[in-house]
């Protein structure tokens, strides 16, 4: 029971990070129908940006308050990653809009290879590790030999995720931008006819996707404290799995899917085999796509001639 509770806490923490990345996949797929393969690598770049910003703040500027430093790091990472994704969309995807189906996918795969190798070449292939930023934990249940703990880090991840999801939900559900986005999702041509700037809306979708990936990246850095150039691919595929599981195009689905994937991964590692935890995640992806392609919250695909 204690193990179960502890894994539940760990799983939700991991799942929050996946959920934040998954929103980026689901939004981009919803609006232009493309699997943004480079999104996992955008997330990885955001971890590097956060790492560099954190080092500047703590070692050069001597900011000692971790909370303040993390807040600034979060903002900086969001700004730079959004800018990067905006540029990527302009360079690699916009010229291919209206082109045939495979072109943006190949372009995104190329971009993914480019980004991870760019980081490898510019920052070196080794793992980058920083000492833990936040220490301290709450003991929830203590049975002498096994204590269930909720660390400050995990609490921070939960609260940051919750706050940002609330802001983001408000943005999509209540603002003009959100309405434009949903309109483009339903029918780009009609949206353009009624005066929605489609190109700008798509650009902003990429910007929001990257901002949320940067939140995930900052939290990832805070939680694990280590990153390398190759860390984009697997979290990317898992977040995509989360998006598919939740029903692609559905925003609450992405978050629920992310938490489910986090839970499946941690429980699998705890009870079965840690070596095969990625196999478990990939199998969930395959099984979902085969048996439940519309996901938990998605609309069924209508076949049109």
């Amino acid at each position, binding site marked *: 029971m204690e193990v179960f509770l502890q894994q539940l806490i760990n799983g939700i923490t991991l799942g929050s990070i996946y959920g934040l990345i998954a929103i980026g996949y689901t939004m981009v797929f919803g609006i232009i129908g493309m699997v943004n393969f480079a999104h996992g690598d955008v997330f990885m770049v955001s971890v590097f940006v956060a790492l560099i910003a954190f080092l500047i703040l703590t070692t050069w500027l001597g900011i000692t308050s971790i909370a303040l430093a993390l807040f600034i790091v979060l903002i900086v990472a969001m700004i730079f990653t959004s800018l990067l994704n905006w540029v990527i969309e302009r360079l690699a995807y916009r010229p291919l809009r209206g082109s045939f189906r495979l*072109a943006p996918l*190949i372009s995104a*795969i190329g971009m993914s290879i480019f980004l991870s190798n*760019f980081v490898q070449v510019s*920052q070196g292939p080794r793992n980058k590790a*920083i000492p833990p930023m936040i220490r301290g934990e709450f003991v929830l249940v203590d049975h002498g030999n096994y204590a269930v703990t909720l660390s400050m880090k995990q609490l921070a991840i939960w609260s940051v995720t919750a706050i940002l999801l609330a802001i983001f939900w408000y943005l999509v559900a209540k603002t003009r931008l959100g309405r434009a986005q949903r309109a483009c999702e339903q029918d780009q041509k009609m949206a353009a006819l009624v005066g929605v700037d489609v190109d700008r809306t798509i650009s902003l979708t990429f910007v929001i996707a990257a901002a949320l990936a940067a939140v995930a990246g900052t939290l990832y850095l805070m939680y694990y404290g280590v990153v390398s150039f190759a860390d984009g691919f697997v979290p990317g595929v898992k977040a995509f799995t989360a998006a598919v599981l939740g029903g692609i195009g559905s925003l609450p689905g992405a978050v629920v899917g992310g938490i489910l994937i986090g839970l499946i991964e941690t429980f699998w590692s705890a009870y079965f085999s840690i070596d095969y935890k990625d196999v478990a995640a*990939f199998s969930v992806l395959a099984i979902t*796509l085969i048996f439940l392609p519309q996901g938990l919250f998605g609309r069924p695909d209508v076949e049109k001639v």
Partner: protein
Amino acid sequence: MADVRGERVNVVLALRDASKTGVISFFVLLPLIGFLTLTNIRNELILTTRWPLLFTWVGVIFSGRFIYSLAIAPWLAQRAMRPVAAAPSAWRSFVGKWFVPFAIGFAIAYPLIAIFGAGYDSALKWIDNFGIQILIYVMLGWGLNIVVGLAGLLDLGYVAFYAVGAYSYALLAKNFGFTFWLLLPLAGILSSFWGILLGFPVLRLRGDYLAIVTLAFGEIIRLVLINFVDLTNGYAGISGIPRPSFFGIPFNASDNGFDATFGFEFSPLHRTIFLYYVILALAFITAFVTVRLRRMPVGRAWEALREDEIACRSLGINTTNTKLTAFAMGAMFAGFAGSFFAARQGFISPESFTFLESATVLSIVVLGGMGSQIGVALAAVAFVGATEMLRELDFLKQIFGADFDPTQYRMLLFGAAMVLIMIWRPRGLVSSRDPSVFLKERKSISAELTKEGHG
């Protein structure tokens, strides 16, 4: 006078455009190029800055954009205004007619050309690194072309079948002592069996979803290869795989070896040349089978499926079986290539079967022009050849300093090239369609007129 003023306005506009790009590129490159994280002796991360490098890059991008908007963009716009020639020029049709025989002749004569061109001693590198390496990718490209180019099924896990072929050969040859010529067809059969096994549940899916599921299967197979240590030896891989023999005569320096039997002086080059012709033959078989299959009902069904799946179904084509045959055929050729790869290397590990490999083969197919065998071959030569060429660029060390290693930029340039070629020619290098069925005369169809279904 008006002309001069127009020029000046253009320059001002181009400058403004370039400054905007420069400012954006400064901020995009600032974190990752402006700063460098290094690990010091106490294993702590420290930061250093690289302002000169950052400003060099911003300068390069600024001037590139300036030249683009001043000179290249107007030129492109002017060219787009010109009407497209209806019939291909005489020169192009001449090239089109003679290119294939010439390329086949060149491929057959290549080892001799390499020996005469580079000398007996350094020919090994040219035949092995360029010839064999490129031909493996040509063969993989042609195999995947059946799945992606003809049947229109997007497969991102193609490397899984390549891995099945390679591990089948390695394990069966090491543990049971079977020979290369027995295992080559066996590996193909095993791979196509896996193709059917994996294909059966997923072929109801379409487009991007199919791509992602095949990616998941590819990764699962790789992770199983890593973790099933008892069978596959995990990360360490399998070494000491028996090398192929010349129909029973081994390539070694012993008395009953190839060179002694035929009265040559012993040289490792002979095995490489033999391997070159084996893979060349395998590649030709792939091409030949594909060409013939395209004329058979099943090939026609593949192409019909690519163009419109719903129409296909309403005409009574069994789409599941049609897709499965395409999957199995593609997997079989990957299995051949895989067992050849294992036999050539003598060592395999899961490292060789990553997603990157699938992405490389897929981009060769798409960049070459889906469905076009010549295009795929050209793309394989261009990509693999160019990435291998980077190893040879030692003169760059004199420009950029001794610690400049061009090979580390291999994948970086590869990714950038994928994006650029997609933007330049989204339909690939050879983008026209040659119909396999026609009414009166065979006419190439421009890719702009064809529309892919949802496959």
